[in-house]
Structure formats: structure tokens, C-alpha cells
């Protein structure tokens, strides 16, 4: 309790001294090419303070506590929607974002369901939630015809029991794992009905004994090092693991598949907190990110698709040509989106998740 108080005081102190020529960004971990950060400082003369988080829930707690001291934060769509209604963000000033013309209408149409008219946010990246595998190890355990592109791999207890030995990580994100389980049994993944949601529980409980860890970022290194053989995670993170393994030349071959039963499509949106110390600088940062070449550089580095149409000509073939990143029409049909749960349902969902994670 004392530490909480102290850190709160520290946070206030930090907010108090935030300088006008300083921009504080709070983004997901492993989510940008760090060269862009130096480039931003050189181009604009502003000091950039860049912190990272790895869960929407942690970000939301900071947003709802207020006085986070950040000028830019990056919640995913459903969380953005909740936080907008809590009054956590300020509207963007379009006159300060000339590069907004680069935005891709296809993505904007989808993000508008979370942020009507995209008044509060711009899309940074989007992707799918799916299955990352260490191809060699999974084939060794389950045979040549292992269902690596199907939810059967992670939701069928027989498969998971065998995979346990080489290690499986799941995301610690109830709002993504529960919809996936519902999709697997043919229910509506975006259901808010507690009775339907309850059907996800036996699926996840059936495989939880074989899950080594529920975590949102450790699996990148664990997969790349060969410490685990399966991760239910985010597309770009798994592709980064693939890259790290290839660079390390450690014999680990990582592959990502959006499950053929259907995969969650999510959008990470950059927004400016209502109490941002430097909203002016925040707009400068957003406009910098909206630049086609900068955005392409970020995507080329993190292997996520972005919401910037103009950036596409600068994307390397590895990114724009990979259907795991930029899905073709057929795959796009197979993707679903979700909407935020009302408070009561949220409680049921998180309680179910605690039960799944801890076994009680």
C-alpha cells in the first residue's frame, strides 16, 4: 500500500514537471522500430519518452486512474470504446494532422465501430490472434499432419496433453481467448450472453492443465529460443519470433497461422488522454506516425499490418505479400471482431478467466 502511495506521488511529480517540448508515449512492447524514435526527435526537436506495456487491462487501469502523464496511448478497439465512454480521451484536432489523408478507408470503416467517425483515435496497427508453432517440435510430437492451422491444436485436450512436454503459452487476455473458444464450438464469438459465454469455460478448463503460462509478451522470446513449441498469440509477435529465431540460426522454425475456424481481428488505436500534459506535441507525434514512409518502416519492422493506405507502396514484400499479415479476401471473410462487454458481463468473464488461469 505504501508503495502504491509513493508511486502515485512519484507519478504526480513526474506529471508536474512534464515539459512543453516533451512527448510521452505509452505503447505496446515490441511494437516499433526504435530508429523511428530517434528520427522523430531529430525531425521535430521534441524529446520523446517512450514507455511500454503488454496488456490492455493494465493500460485501462492507468487511464481510469487518471493523471497518467502520457500524451499518447495505444488501446485496442474494444478497450478504446470503453475508455472513450469513461471520458478518458480528447477529440483529435484534424487541422493538426495533415497526414491523416493517408489513412486507409477499409480499416477506418472497421475502427469506426469502436470510435464513431474516428474522432478520438487513429489506427496504428491491426492484426489477428492465432497460433504460433515451432514447426519441427510440433511435428515431432503430433506427427507430420499436426493440425497447425486449426484451433484443434490448442483446444483439443489430446493434442495439448502431448504438446505440454514441449511447452504451450496462451495469451493472458480473456477478451480474446474466450471468443476464440466460442468460435471453436460454433457459437457467436462476440456473444454477451452469460449462458453462451459459460460454454467457453469447459473448453478452456479442459486444456488449462497443459498450459505452462498465460502471458502477453514472454512467448516471443520463448518461441524464438525453442523454450516453448506453441503460443496462442498475436500475429506480428509470432512473426517477430520467427525472425528472431532465423537471425539466431538456432534451428528453430516458427510459423504463424490464423486458425481456419476463424480468427479475431483487432485494431490498436493511438489516442490522446483527456489530461495529456502536451496535446500539441501529441498531435505532432501522430502526424509523424501517419507519414507513409514512417508507418511503412514501423510495419516492416514489427510485421503487423497498418491502417495507412499510402504506406503500402513502401512495405517490403515480406509484409505486404504475406497473407498472415495482409489477409487476402478469402481470409478476411473468416475474421471476426468483438465489442466491449457491459460491466456485469465483464465481471463474469474475468472471474471465469481467473478460474481458468488458477484452476479455482
Amino acid at each position, binding site marked *: *500500500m*505504501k508503495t*502504491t*502511495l509513493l508511486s502515485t506521488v512519484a507519478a504526480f511529480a513526474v506529471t508536474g514537471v512534464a515539459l512543453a517540448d516533451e512527448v510521452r508515449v505509452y505503447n505496446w512492447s515490441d511494437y516499433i522500430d526504435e530508429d523511428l524514435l530517434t528520427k522523430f526527435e531529430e525531425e521535430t526537436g521534441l524529446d520523446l519518452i517512450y514507455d511500454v506495456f503488454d*496488456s490492455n*487491462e*493494465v493500460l*485501462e*487501469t492507468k*487511464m*481510469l*486512474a*487518471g493523471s497518467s502523464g502520457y500524451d499518447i496511448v495505444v488501446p485496442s478497439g474494444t478497450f478504446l470504446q*470503453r475508455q472513450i*465512454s*469513461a*471520458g*478518458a480521451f480528447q477529440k483529435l484536432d484534424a487541422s493538426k494532422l495533415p497526414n491523416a489523408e493517408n489513412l486507409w478507408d477499409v480499416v477506418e470503416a472497421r475502427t469506426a465501430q469502436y470510435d464513431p467517425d474516428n474522432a478520438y483515435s487513429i489506427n496504428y496497427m491491426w492484426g489477428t490472434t492465432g497460433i504460433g508453432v515451432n514447426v519441427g517440435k510440433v511435428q515431432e510430437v503430433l506427427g507430420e499432419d499436426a493440425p497447425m492451422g486449426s484451433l484443434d491444436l490448442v483446444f483439443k485436450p489430446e493434442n495439448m496433453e502431448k504438446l505440454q512436454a514441449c*511447452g504451450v503459452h496462451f495469451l*493472458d487476455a*480473456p477478451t480474446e481467448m474466450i471468443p476464440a473458444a466460442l468460435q471453436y464450438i460454433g457459437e457467436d464469438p462476440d456473444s454477451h450472453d452469460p449462458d453462451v459465454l459459460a460454454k467457453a469455460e469447459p473448453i478452456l478448463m479442459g486444456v*488449462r492443465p497443459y*498450459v*505452462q*503460462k*498465460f502471458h502477453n509478451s514472454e512467448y516471443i522470446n520463448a518461441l524464438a*529460443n*525453442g*523454450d516453448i513449441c506453441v503460443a496462442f498469440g498475436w500475429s506480428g509477435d509470432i512473426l517477430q519470433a520467427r525472425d528472431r529465431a532465423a537471425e539466431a540460426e538456432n534451428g528453430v522454425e516458427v510459423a504463424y497461422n490464423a486458425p481456419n475456424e476463424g480468427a479475431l481481428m483487432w485494431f490498436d488505436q493511438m489516442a490522446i488522454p*483527456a489530461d495529456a500534459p502536451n496535446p500539441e506535441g501529441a498531435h505532432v507525434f501522430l502526424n509523424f506516425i501517419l507519414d507513409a514512409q514512417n508507418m511503412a518502416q514501423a510495419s516492416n519492422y514489427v510485421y503487423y499490418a497498418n491502417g495507412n493506405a499510402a504506406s503500402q507502396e513502401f512495405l517490403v514484400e515480406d509484409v505486404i505479400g504475406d497473407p498472415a499479415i495482409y489477409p487476402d479476401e478469402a481470409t478476411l471473410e473468416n475474421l471476426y471482431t468483438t465489442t466491449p462487454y457491459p*460491466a456485469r458481463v*465483464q*465481471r463474469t468473464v*474475468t*472471474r471465469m*478467466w*481467473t*478460474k481458468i*488461469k*488458477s*484452476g*479455482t
Partner: protein
Amino acid sequence: MRRAVLIAVPYAWLLALFLIPFAVVFKISLSDIALAIPPYTPTAKDGIWNMLSQLDFENFIFLTEDDLYWKAYVSSLQIALISTVLTLLVGYPMAYAMARAPEQWRPTLLMLVILPFWTSFLIRVYAWVGILSGEGFLNQFLMWIGIVDAPLTILNTNTAVYIGIVYTYLPFMILPIYSALDRLDGSLIEAAEDLGCSRIKAFWLVTIPLSRNGIIAGCFLVFIPALGEFVIPSLLGGSGTLMIGKVLFEEFFSNRDWPVASAVAVILLLILIIPIVLFQRNEQKQVEAEG
């Protein structure tokens, strides 16, 4: 007057760093969750009287209805208790050896115990991830010397949590025991031996009782933070490691339910404070009885 000022200092400290934060947390534990900034209602903005009239014990009742919390408290108590005993078993011999070491070595030995504090706690716990993981140093070493054929799964289990806690809190156990043993009058042991005690018996009858205060202080210093430990179980523990610190984090960050999180924290505090107060009372009575 000067006395009043002197007494006021610790009380002001207690008030500012314990009672006021506690009152804030207690108030939140009586509130309701809301989608707002801050995420609970009512707040002082609604007017003090209005706010007080809306508070209730709903969240505490909620805690009794779900066995998760009960299980987490029990499991934390168990983990904290076992780690405290383990730390004592490792720490006592070290403190004893330090107190027995030649005078000129002692400052160096003391330094060595304190040295790990120069590195951040988080980094030291993270280092254990590298040591204990499947491809980590420990497994590679064990496989190299041929004790095991396949890597042991230690990381992400309760064993790793015990290792982490014992390692992290060891200095807190060693230092008070060392200071008790350091002050111990060696002639008492000689006297016991002269009067026919074997060395082992003298250790049990003289050394241990005289270092009792150090042992108690060390055990409290390990047990109390271990009970609410969050960093170690979340970095080293697995999905099955149930500890109240993790539950508290979940309530606060995943459920974003500050009122329930606060209720969990209030109960945790009561679990810690009541036995300590009872223990201190008991001690005081003993001192008075002896005096």
C-alpha cells in the same frame, strides 16, 4: 514540550504513511465499481455526506461468496510459511558462521550479504528466469554432469517461487540473526560446556534461545512481505501458483474492480496485523512477568 514533539514524529509518520492510505483504501473497498475516472463511485465530488451514505460492505460479502479468495489467502499463507522456514534453515547457519568468523573478516562477510541489494530486485528475480528455464544454466549444467537426461521443469512452478523468495529475502533473515549472535557473550557457552553440556546441547540451550529475538525479527521480515509477494510468483510461478498478491493484481488490473481489490487488501492487512498485535502483547506480558 520537547518530549511531545519527539513522540509526535513517529505518530505523524504512522498517520501519513499508514493510517491515511489505509482510510483511502478502506473507503474504496466500500464503494461500487463504475466506468469513470476514477473507476468507482461515490467519490468526494458527490459531497461528503452523500458519499458516506452510499458506502456499504457489499464487496466484503462478495469475497465470502467466492472460494477463490479464501483459497488464495490460504495458499499464500502456506507459501509464505514454508519459505520462511526454508529461509531460516539456510540463513541461520550463514549468520552463525559469520558471527563465528574471525573479527577482521566480518565486515567483508556482511558486505557480501548486502551486496546483492546493489542490483535491482527485479533484475535479480529475472536472472532466475534465465537460470531455471528449460534451456537455462541449471538444466544445462545438470545435463552436462549427467544427473538428468531431459531438462527439469522448474520455471513456472511453485518450486521456482520458493527458490525466488528464499533467495530474495535471505539477507533479511541473516542480518537480524547475525546481529543477535554477534552480541552473544561467548563465556555463556563456555560456562554451559564447563557444566557438562555437549557442544550441540549448548547450542540448543544457550545459543538458540539467546538469538531468539533475531530469529523472530528475521522471520517477520521474511514472512510479511512474502505473504503479499507479487513479483516473484508472477515472474517465476506458473498458472497454478495461487497467491493473494496475484489475485490483488488481477482485481486491480484485469477486472479493473478497485472496490473489490481494496477489500482484498483490507483483509490481507487484517490477516497480518492481528497475529502480530497478539504476538507483541504476549511478548510484553512475558517481559513484564520476568521483570
